[in-house]
């Protein structure tokens, strides 16, 4: 087991004047045994970052260490990692057993130990009866488990996951999320998990890295990221519906954007006056979309109402008051938290 240290990691494609930098100096310290999720919109560089840790992409600048070793110039096989790919990357011509045993055979692990290790992994993942099947004879969920099994049997220092759940249907995804959590509790192997799905990130992460356009916006526990977003990007990316951001809120200084989460706005007798534009019922809660006129334009403010609370009429005017201790302030130009 090992920690992962990223220090000022850069990635660019091409060279010279045409170089295209996609990761702009990411530094992070991932502790031994920790489960860290990298989350961000598509194209933010999260997969590239993971592939640099894996050794599948060259590191253009900075340093990556696994344990105490700098791995910049090491081959993927020398980094003592295992990776679960988005499309699982199972070897289609090999049985489930051979898929899991491939790495061990190359490492010249004795035959009976290979069998023991694969059997154990198959037992954990409930794959025992499928060991002789080919990947094409398995369902999506089973293939996903084989991919995990292939990672487990190697007993690596680090697990890398590249959006491993995105090809599963919603129900299976929720189930597999729990399985991954349990697996991590049992094995305690340092894990780096890349996803674009904030629910996955919030539920799986011990700490999470929020990335945007090649920059690490925030690194913290899910609670921290949710309660104290470091920037307007994090504020709107994490949480659904996103945080309301109001540029020229009453009482706020110029150049400051005020943020307030939909659940921290209460409908009161006086306060900000909004026209109800739309209503959405989600079962346990309702979302009220209020239009707030100011100057010539307007802003849409979302309010979350729990079940049982009175719901305003469409088109009516309501008054809302934010809970003062839940207000967030951001610099309008940089987007950074103040």
């Amino acid at each position, binding site marked *: 087991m090992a920690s992962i240290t990223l220090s000022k990691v850069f990635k660019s494609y091409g060279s010279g004047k045409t170089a295209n930098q996609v990761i702009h100096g990411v530094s992070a310290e991932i502790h031994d045994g920790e489960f860290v999720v990298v989350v961000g919109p598509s194209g933010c560089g999260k997969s590239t970052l993971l592939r640099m840790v894996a050794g599948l992409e060259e590191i253009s600048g900075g340093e990556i260490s696994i344990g105490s070793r700098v791995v910049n110039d090491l081959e993927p096989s020398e980094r003592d990692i295992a990776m679960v*790919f988005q499309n699982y990357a199972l*070897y289609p011509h090999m049985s489930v057993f051979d898929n899991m045993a491939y790495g061990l055979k190359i490492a010249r692990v004795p035959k009976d130990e290979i069998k023991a290790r694969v059997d154990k992994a198959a037992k954990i993942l409930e794959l025992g009866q499928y060991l002789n099947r080919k990947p094409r004879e398995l369902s999506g969920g089973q293939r996903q488990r084989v991919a995990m099994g292939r990672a487990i049997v190697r007993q690596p220092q680090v697990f890398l996951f590249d959006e491993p759940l995105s090809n599963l249907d919603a129900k299976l995804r929720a189930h597999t999320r729990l399985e991954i959590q349990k697996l991590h509790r049992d094995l305690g192997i340092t894990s780096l998990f890349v996803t674009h799905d904030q629910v996955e990130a919030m539920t799986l992460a011990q700490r999470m890295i929020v990335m945007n356009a090649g920059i690490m916006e925030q690194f913290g526990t899910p609670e921290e990221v949710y309660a104290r977003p470091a920037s307007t990007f994090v504020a709107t990316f994490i949480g659904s519906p996103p945080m309301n951001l109001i540029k020229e809120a009453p009482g706020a200084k110029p150049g400051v954007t005020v943020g307030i989460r939909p659940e921290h706005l209460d409908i009161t007798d006086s306060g900000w006056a909004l026209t109800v534009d739309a209503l959405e019922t989600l079962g346990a809660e309702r979302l009220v979309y209020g239009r707030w006129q100011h100057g010539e334009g307007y802003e849409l403010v979302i309010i979350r109402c729990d079940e049982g609370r009175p719901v305003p009429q469409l088109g009516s005017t309501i008054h809302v008051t934010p809970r003062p201790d839940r207000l967030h302030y951001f610099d309008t130009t940089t987007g950074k938290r103040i």
Partner: protein
Amino acid sequence: MEKRVRFKSRWLPWVLVAPQLAITLIFFYWPAAQALLQSVMMDAPFGGSLEFVGLDNFRQLFNDPDYLASFRTTAIFSILVAVCGLSISLLLAVMANRVVRGERFYKTLLIWPYAVAPVVAGVLWVFMFASPMGVIAFWLQAVGINWNHLLNSNHAMTLIIIAAVWKQISYNFLFFLAGLQSIPKSLIEAAAIDGASPWRRFWTIVFPLLSPTTFFLLVINVVYSFFDTFGIIDATTKGGPGKDTSILVYKVYYDGFKAMDMGGSAAQSVILMAIVVTLTVIQFRFVEKKVQY
């Protein structure tokens, strides 16, 4: 809503497929039937009459040491053409698959030989190997090899194999390249993480996944070396020296049109037909069943 066009007329579909049917019937089935018929007939020595002789033509063939020798020549020739052709083009495809810059240029150049007619390909190589003035023959002489494919049967065999392989590499290359590009990159990456060296990755992942392509090409190449190489042989060695490069299809032509033994020649084409049918059946059986993922 029905999206396909449906014809009510009874004869229109037949009219529409008629050209294709006519071509197949006139150019494939008719000659084949003719050959079948002729294979059990014998011409009178000076023409004029035909006599039914049953399987005599076939019996004679299998007692003819020349014919058996031609089988051996064909076997050596086609195995070498297939093996050399496939391995060289696989190597080229693997390298082309790694090229990042100038990829199109490289591919285009590799595909060109396919546009060259077999006879032209043969003539091209004859010029280069023509002793003593051909470019390659000249070089060979410089290193002490006295090249003469008109007298030395090994030289002759080498020459037609080179010409035949050169001509077929483009075709194989295209299929191999397409096969390589259809292997997901993540498989190779997974194998790299699993610790496999590039060599091992190729033999344990890439090559097995290419096996449907390889098998398909193997059959195509064997059929090619059996039949389509006629032009090359006719333009280079004419089956010589002696009959040492006279493969089955060349012998069919020679016995029929030079030696004027129509019955024997027809019997040989019937045997060739049987070989092709067998190869095709094997190909369909195999490709559908075993070698697919």
